[in-house]
């Protein structure tokens, strides 16, 4: 059965990067097809060029390192302020809750005393 070039189109790049092996029939096709051979060579060249790009370093404009530290500091300060506010808010709410609870307990106590006095008067 004959193999068509477009059947291999998805595989040639993976063959070039070593992550895929062609079947025997596909290998036979590539060995006889100049178009597929050329495509394979092009992928190999591309991959080599891209790997070479990794060692290229593009220098940032001056000041980036100090910007990085300033950003970390600024966010750190914002977090600290936020946690301070949160703590204050928690303390305020805690105090409010305690005061409400004390008030409620007081009201219950007064109410229960009044009802006891009313019972004594009735008897």
């Amino acid at each position: 059965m004959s193999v068509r070039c477009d059947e291999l189109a998805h595989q040639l790049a993976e063959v070039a990067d070593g992550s895929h092996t062609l079947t025997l029939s596909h290998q036979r096709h590539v060995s006889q097809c100049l178009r597929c051979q050329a495509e394979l060579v092009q992928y190999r060249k591309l991959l080599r060029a891209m790997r070479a790009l990794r060692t290229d370093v593009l220098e940032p404009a001056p000041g980036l390192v100090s910007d990085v530290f300033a950003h970390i500091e600024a966010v750190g300060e914002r977090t600290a302020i936020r946690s301070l506010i949160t703590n204050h808010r928690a303390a305020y709410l805690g105090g409010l809750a305690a005061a409400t609870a004390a008030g409620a307990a007081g009201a219950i106590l007064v109410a229960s005393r009044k009802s006891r006095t009313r019972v004594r008067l009735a008897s």
Partner: protein
Amino acid sequence: MSPGPNPSTDDASLAGRVDELAALAIAARDGDRDAFEELVRRTTPSTYTLALRLTNSEEDARDVVQETYLRAYRGLKNYRGDAAFTTWLYRICANCSSTFLTTRGRHRHADLDELVEFADQSAGADVEGQSEASALKDQVAAGLAELPPRLRAVIVLRDVYDLPHEAIAAELGISVSAAKVRLHRARHKLRTQIFPELDEIDVRAM
């Protein structure tokens, strides 16, 4: 013929650098602030390069670098030293770039001026006898800059920075199979852009 780089010397110096960075990262993780600052100084150019390749904008790349180191600073306690520090950092950078481009809704291509500048460099390199490999590298850099950001991110992380498919998928928030499909599309697009001859032959033959 000009002497090429010596791979064994390069590998040795790279390994030494990786060890130094790992030692600094572990010291920083254990609370040494000077070590963290040294780590930032040493890795900023390469992190910026990756951010620039992913965002295609100097301004955006600077923002991404700042966010990358903030996340690295916060996440350093989770760094175990089992992967190279740069690989760990590149993953954070990829994630930051992806988040940055998504939230800004800026899936933009390079400015025309930037592309023209890239194209001029490669054309000049070709005629004035620079080596073929160097000229191709310039063309590839320009070609990568022209790809849509979704395709560019995958091909840069896989083929330039050698990150595994799984890591790329995790950092970009896509499935592994989607990452592979994008990689294939990106490679095909880049190849036809740089070597258009084969496809022209096809068109003529039809």
